[in-house]
């Protein structure tokens, strides 16, 4: 397909795609790839804080656990959080955006004002509040993230739906007697998917970053999860001596977020209906 060929010629996007596929691969096959899978829970205090070596490529942490394995195992958690948060935010956000964009009058206004309120919520503070209420955990972090991310989708979809609502082909469909559901889901949604998918891809990277931050602040993953952010938090007391303890999880976060951002950029260029071809 023309779109795929175009994507493959975009070097940064291709690099991003390879990174993302790599991370997904690791997330799925982590337990089989990690040399010391048991290091999720086990501790080997005799090996604590060893620098990178042949046996332990990323060194060990303060409990003697192989950092290489923990970074690999952390991928699964990171992706799970990202996919869940973005998935929920997208479902809520896109639906509301479609309704608000296509309807007029009080329904549309109400939805958009509610969206404005949620947009104003500070992400980290909400996470903190929920952590207080529910006890700090990955679940409270995910709720906070989803609750503050869905408005972005609503805004985008609202703009697209409003724009498409007055386009001629929607007018033609109304003339033919098409119902609202058909117009929204068969016509407006596909044509709005470009900014949605781009925002979702970038959001995946962004969510990983914020989840890591929350983990760092102690409001997300809890020990002994192999969470990247948590690892960096725990490494604080051992810096600058045990530099590997913060560096490798940090690099993992950097690489993953970069990958998603590059793919998002590449997708923006190819998600144009005019690139769809019959042959």
């Amino acid at each position, binding site marked *: 397909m023309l779109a795929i060929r175009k994507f493959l010629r975009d070097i940064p996007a291709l690099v991003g795609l390879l990174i993302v596929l790599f991370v997904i691969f690791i997330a799925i096959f982590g337990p089989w790839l990690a040399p010391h899978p048991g290091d999720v829970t086990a501790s080997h205090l005799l090996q604590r804080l060893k620098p990178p070596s042949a046996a332990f490529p990323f060194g060990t942490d303060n409990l003697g656990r192989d950092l290489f394995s923990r970074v690999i195992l952390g991928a699964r958690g990171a992706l799970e959080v990202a996919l869940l948060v973005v998935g929920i935010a997208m479902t809520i956000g896109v639906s509301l955006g479609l309704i608000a964009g296509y309807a007029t009058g009080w329904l549309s206004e109400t939805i958009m004002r509610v969206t404005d309120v949620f947009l104003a919520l500070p992400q980290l503070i909400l996470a903190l509040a929920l952590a207080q209420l529910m006890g700090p955990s990955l679940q409270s972090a995910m709720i906070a993230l989803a609750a503050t991310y869905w408005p972005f989708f609503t805004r985008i979809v609202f703009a697209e739906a409003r724009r498409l609502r007055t*386009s*001629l*082909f929607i*007018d*033609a*469909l*109304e*003339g*033919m*007697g*098409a*119902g609202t559901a*058909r117009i929204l889901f*068969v*016509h407006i949604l*596909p*044509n709005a998917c470009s900014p949605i998918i781009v925002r979702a891809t970038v959001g995946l990277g962004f969510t990983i970053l914020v989840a890591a931050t929350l983990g760092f602040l102690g409001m997300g993953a809890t020990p002994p999860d192999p969470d990247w952010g948590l690892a960096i938090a725990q490494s604080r007391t051992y810096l600058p001596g045990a530099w590997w303890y913060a560096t490798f999880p940090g690099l993992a976060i950097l690489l993953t977020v970069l990958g998603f951002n590059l793919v998002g950029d590449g997708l923006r260029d190819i998600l144009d*209906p*005019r690139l*769809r*071809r*019959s*042959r």
Partner: protein
Amino acid sequence: MNDAAVVLELRDISVRLGGRRRWLLPAIPAFPAVSNVNLEINAGEILGLVGESGCGKTTLGRTVLGLQRESAGSIKLNGEIVTGLEPRDARRKRRAIHYVHQDAAAALDPWWSVGHALEEGLIIQGVPHKAERQQRMRDMLAAVGLDSDAAKRYPHELSGGQLRRIALARVLLLRPSIIILDEPTSGLDMSVQATILNLLLDLRQRLGLTYLFISHDLSVVRKLCDRVAIMYLGRIIEIAPAERIFTRPLHPYTQALLAAVPRLEPQHLSAPQIRGDLPTSAPATTGCSFAPRCPHALPLCAAQQPVLEIAETGHEIACHRWRELAQ
């Protein structure tokens, strides 16, 4: 006077657009896009609606279709009153009327193949079996002169002429009896226009269709239409059989319009007959809306709105001075 059945009857139709009440600010007045239009369309005829930009022909077309609600007046479809309804209900009652847009490409969803667009009409209508829908699609594509594998194409892969045919096919699949065609030849090369026009004539005969043909292309209108109505600033100012309008136009605006059309064998570039540009603000409510630009205007013209009167059988004109000017 032919006694074919009148399928569509418009009585005193007026459409005002754009008025808005605002909180704490003076209201924005509505613009009279169409004023006091009376029209009868007979079964099987092609009625041309001609005018320049701002004359209200597209608004009138959309009002007849039902997507634009009329502000006043009534429309009778096959004897039944179909006005006074919101767009969705109006469209349901006027299922026999369909619309082919001017911009055929923009009237198709760029995301789906044209086959999807064609089938969709049938799905909306409730044709249950895919096999039947596919068959009707294939038959219709053949009827408009397209290959059956055109259905797999996307709108941006087709030429202007092909897109017009798809738009026509989509509407015909819904089995209308009246089709409103909005500038069906605009943007088409002359070498391609002929196929569309011949197709329209052929389909009219085979399927017993009636057309409301909105266009500014006078040479096409002359050859295709049975009767022609000229619109200016929301009113019909002259209506007559096509040949008569072109050989004996009575209204000064019609005369100026016809004189302005460039010809292939001119003697010289003719000087413009009417002054000024088409007005962009609301027309005067008293008096003839053409008076400010009319070379024959008298004070009477600015004071009193002329009404359509019968000049000859089938030929109506709205002008105070047509009798004297015809000498």
